[in-house]
């Protein structure tokens, strides 16, 4: 019922738009302008575009999930780390054979050239030692080049695999992949294909749904760039699906999932965030109850931060292979047992080893059995209801936003039209002398508005300088306090360690408190404790026995740094909002004292009842935008800091020995692998300093953009629009004056017509208001 109501609002919006199109002014320029805007809105309304981003850990099954929705093997989804560049997969009705479009080739070609160059230098590489590496080398050293598009599953698959390998080897060769070049959605590789799942869904199949496949989030290296792409993509997503490897997550600490979840949830809000607990086919029967899994994720792992209705246990692999099988059956009436994926298919869907000739024979002649198994597996994959919910959710949100955007535009246009008809009527009824006088006065008012606009922009600029200086001070003091705090903790550990150790060398409980972890790491060290402590005091170095402990300790430190950074940013945000509020107040004062008077004058020259929008109202929302922007920034900070720490070599010798990120590609200097793992205090200090520098820089940059792009621009746009609007009205008056002087219009008829059109606009205004109310009502229900 709910989507039905939305449909009614959408239809009403379209109707209002169409009616508005019939009353556009007859002056060519204005008509053209309005026509373009309205046509564009109509297009957007009828061809809704929306994105569901699929994120998660490496190998959780993101690509498999997407393949299952598409019903084809379009994305590489094998055992080694695969997806390295975000890829869009767009539902395109009627596009049966997938086609991949590559809008930006040059950066890839440049990277390829660099790789080839490096390969000539005989560089050491783990990847190249593998079969795939050899294969890759063979491919790129032969006659390889990129093309703008690839058709068919096979070509696409191969291209993406080569692309992924390229990115992977680039890391080993210390080349920077050109991630920056792909920040914009339109620049990413995009596969257009009809989604099998959406084919029957009348209402939503018309819309353009894109799924965004993303690299797993523990691909740390290069992630600073990757992260930028992801951030800009996630901002545009309607919903986010977090795919996790459930068997793995259920056995690890809750913190991991928490962190991943909180990294993304703010982009779309938790109403549009979903967790796919994947690979349930690998879960023991006793733990595989869907309700149990939902509860475990929602309540235990995520502390109730997500509703359990947004957690979906699935088996993407089963879903994918069953769809693959069904597609094959639809197409050929049977399944060719020589297909490359048949072995996996056999294992996943039939529970059978098709390598075995006997088993093969059994299925060869029993299409019905295969079909039944496919249906059964699809059912067991729990994919159907999952998709129904997720896609409907994203679609609804996108519809809301799109309809709301159009309604706001319509309200504005209809208001302008109404003003214009009012002006027409009055211009037709007044004496020509009065008209001419008004036109002159208007010109002066417009000039005055322009100067006020300039003044306000200047005011914002000055304010920006001021706030920059203040933020700078604030940041410096806050950051040094934070840094000191962290180092104190570090030192406190040493003392506590000493105390505790003096008491007894008792067994350490496996408590998750970071201090305990810290003790544990040291106590279980082989060397006698006093010697170690001495070492620490003197060298500022901590030595660990187990790399796991070092990594736990680091994680704890990072967490503290994270919390402190968060707090700093919160403080800055408060300060910023406080400052911005001051600024907005002073701008509003300016408007009240100066602009308001001009607008009053303008009203009297334009005619009665002109409805000009006051800038004040629009500023209200800017306050919210400020906050929102800071939220996003907090997110970015966390990730950036972590990578930064890693990239800076903060790990020192640890880096080579701790494989805490499961990235085997980083283990290039195997020879240094030792039992002793150390953490250096000085490195920590440096890392913190660099981290906070980055925070400082980003905060300043952000506040700058915020001021120039949001506040300053808003003031300017608002006034500029107002000026243009008034200029248009003036033109209107001028045109009518000319016509009347030349006696080329029937004044009486025109007046009647202007009155009639005013009535129509009044009705359309009312309809727009009702539609807006209905939409909001629907939104609050959703």
């Amino acid at each position, binding site marked *: 019922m709910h989507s039905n109501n939305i449909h009614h609002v959408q239809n009403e919006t*379209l*109707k209002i738009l169409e009616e508005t199109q019939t009353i556009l002014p007859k002056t060519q320029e204005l008509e053209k302008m309005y026509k373009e805007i309205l046509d564009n809105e109509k297009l957007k309304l009828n061809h809704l575009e929306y994105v569901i981003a699929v994120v998660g850990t490496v190998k959780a099954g993101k690509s498999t999930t997407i393949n299952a929705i598409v019903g084809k093997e379009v994305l590489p989804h094998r055992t080694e780390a695969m997806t390295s560049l975000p890829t869009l997969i767009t539902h395109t009705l009627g596009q049966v054979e997938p086609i991949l479009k590559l809008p930006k080739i040059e950066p890839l070609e440049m990277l390829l050239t660099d790789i080839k160059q490096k390969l000539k230098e005989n560089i050491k590489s783990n990847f190249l030692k593998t079969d795939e590496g050899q294969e890759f080398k063979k491919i790129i050293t032969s006659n390889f080049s990129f093309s703008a598009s690839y058709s068919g599953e096979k070509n696409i698959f191969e291209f993406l695999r080569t692309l992924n390998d390229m990115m992977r080897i680039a890391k080993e060769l210390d080349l920077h992949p050109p991630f920056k070049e792909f920040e914009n959605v339109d620049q990413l590789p995009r596969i257009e294909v009809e989604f099998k799942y959406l084919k029957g869904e009348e209402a939503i199949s018309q819309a353009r749904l894109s799924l965004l496949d993303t690299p797993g989030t523990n691909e740390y290296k290069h992630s600073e760039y990757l992260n930028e792409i992801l951030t800009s993509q996630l901002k545009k997503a309607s919903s986010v699906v977090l795919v996790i490897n459930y068997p793995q997550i259920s056995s690890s600490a809750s913190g991991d999932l928490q962190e991943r979840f909180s990294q993304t949830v703010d982009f779309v809000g938790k109403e549009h965030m979903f967790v796919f607990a994947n690979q349930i086919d690998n879960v023991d029967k006793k733990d595989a109850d869907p309700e149990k899994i939902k509860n475990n994720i929602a309540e235990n792992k995520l502390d109730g931060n997500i509703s359990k209705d947004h957690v979906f246990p699935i088996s993407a692999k089963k879903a994918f292979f069953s769809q693959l099988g069904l597609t094959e059956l639809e197409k050929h009436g049977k399944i060719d047992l020589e297909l490359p994926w048949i072995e996996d298919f056999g294992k996943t869907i039939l529970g059978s080893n098709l390598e075995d000739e006997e088993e093969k024979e059994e299925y060869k002649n029993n299409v019905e059995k295969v079909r039944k198994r496919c249906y059964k597996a699809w059912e067991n994959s729990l994919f159907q209801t999952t998709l129904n919910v997720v896609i409907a959710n994203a679609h609804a949100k996108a519809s809301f936003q799109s309809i709301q955007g159009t309604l706001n535009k319509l309200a504005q246009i209809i208001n302008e039209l109404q003003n214009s008809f009012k002006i027409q009527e009055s211009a037709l009824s007044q004496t020509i002398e009065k008209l001419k006088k008004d036109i002159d006065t208007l010109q002066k008012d417009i000039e005055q508005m322009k100067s006020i606009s300039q003044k306000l922009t200047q005011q914002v600029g000055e304010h920006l300088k001021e706030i920059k200086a203040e933020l700078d001070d604030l940041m410096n003091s806050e950051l040094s306090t934070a840094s000191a705090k962290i180092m104190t903790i570090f030192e406190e550990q040493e003392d506590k360690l000493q105390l505790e150790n003096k008491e007894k060398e008792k067994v350490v409980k496996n408590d998750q408190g970071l201090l305990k972890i810290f003790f544990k790491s040291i106590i279980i060290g082989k060397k006698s404790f006093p010697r170690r402590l001495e070492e620490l005091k003197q060298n500022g170095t901590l030595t660990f026995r187990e790399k796991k402990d070092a990594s736990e300790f680091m994680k704890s430190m990072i967490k503290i740094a994270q919390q402190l950074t968060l707090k700093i940013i919160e403080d800055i945000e408060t300060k910023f909002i406080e400052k911005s509020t001051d600024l907005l107040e002073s701008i509003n004062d300016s408007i009240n004292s100066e602009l308001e008077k001009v607008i009053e004058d303008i009203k009297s020259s334009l005619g009665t009842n002109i409805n000009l929008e006051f800038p004040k109202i629009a500023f209200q929302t800017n306050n919210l935008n400020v906050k929102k922007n800071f939220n996003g920034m907090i997110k970015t900070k966390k990730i950036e800091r972590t990578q930064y720490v890693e990239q800076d070599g903060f790990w020192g010798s640890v880096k080579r020995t701790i494989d805490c990120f499961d990235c085997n590609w980083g283990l290039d200097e195997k020879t240094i692998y030792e039992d002793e793992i150390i953490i250096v205090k000085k490195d920590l200090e440096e890392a913190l300093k660099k981290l906070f520098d980055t925070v400082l820089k980003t905060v300043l940059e952000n506040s700058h953009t915020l001021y120039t792009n949001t506040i300053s621009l808003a003031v300017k746009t608002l006034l500029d629009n107002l000026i243009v609007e008034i200029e248009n009205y003036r033109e209107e008056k001028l045109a009518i004056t000319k016509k009347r002087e030349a006696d080329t219009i029937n004044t009486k008829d025109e007046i009647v017509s202007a009155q009639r059109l005013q009535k129509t606009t009044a009705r359309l205004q*009312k309809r727009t208001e009702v539609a807006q109310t209905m939409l909001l009502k629907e939104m609050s229900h959703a």
Partner: protein
Amino acid sequence: MSNNFDVIRAFNIPVEAETINQIQETHRYISDKLILDAVNGVNVVARDFHEVNKSRQSFPERMLDNIFGCSKKRQDLINENVIEGLNACTQWLRDHDKHISRIDQKISLVANELSRTQDEILKFYSQHQKLKNSVNELSKVFFQFEINTSERILYLNDYVRRIDIRTKAMDSLDLELSRLNSNKYNHLAIPLQIYTALDNIKSGYGGIYYDTLTNEKEKNEFQERIENEFMVHFKEKCDLTSFINYSQLAEEVAILQPIQKDALAFISTQHYNAIVTNYGYSEATDLVSILTSSSKYNVLQELDKRSNITNFFTYEDYLKTTLQEHLKV
């Protein structure tokens, strides 16, 4: 002496007196409207197709079989009986003192237009096999018709000045309210009750009174008075702030007696055409027209396509809009 049914018969409109009487119990000006439509038809058939394109054909497209028994092509209906029909109409207008309606004015407007465009019309008829011999006579009839209708209007204006038209208008408002109160229109769904009662007011003394007012304030006051009285009445029958449920309305229309449905279809479509030929904005009237002239299965689809009709019509808005559309044509 000639009554309105004589005119209808003279135009050879295939409708039974009994049917007319039956419809008249609800729609008091149905026969006037039929005559207006016939007279207007003389004009319309001769005019360029494109010119009338924007108005909706009330029939034959809509084939009001229930009123007219069988569907006959409008062209045939009119062409053969123009002279007789117009003569009868002239007679009727001259005689019917006892019956005053706003439609008379409409008829005189059409007559005026007929004589203005008569060259074109006569040319059209001269090409018509059955009529070309009577073009001369036709020309005379047009002439006479125009004179008579102008006389009629003069008389009407005079009459309106002589009598207390305001009291009569108020009486007609009271009468409709009393009919509503005694559930005379209860066979109709609420929006159709509103449409019908307002139509009866505007087609008679109510509309004439409104037209005689020259002062905007007085016009608005009269309009407001009707609006208020109707609101008081209908707020007992429905929640005025709630939205009209179109699919439920379509169901209610579907079970309406066919004659009632067709009568409303005819009236509202004629009304709709009058609005759009005057470049007006028709919303409520179009809604009634579509509801009553489409099949139950098409109504909702049809309404979805009509951009001039909101999807979210409250009873209150509908009432105001209907009144507006009735009075302002």
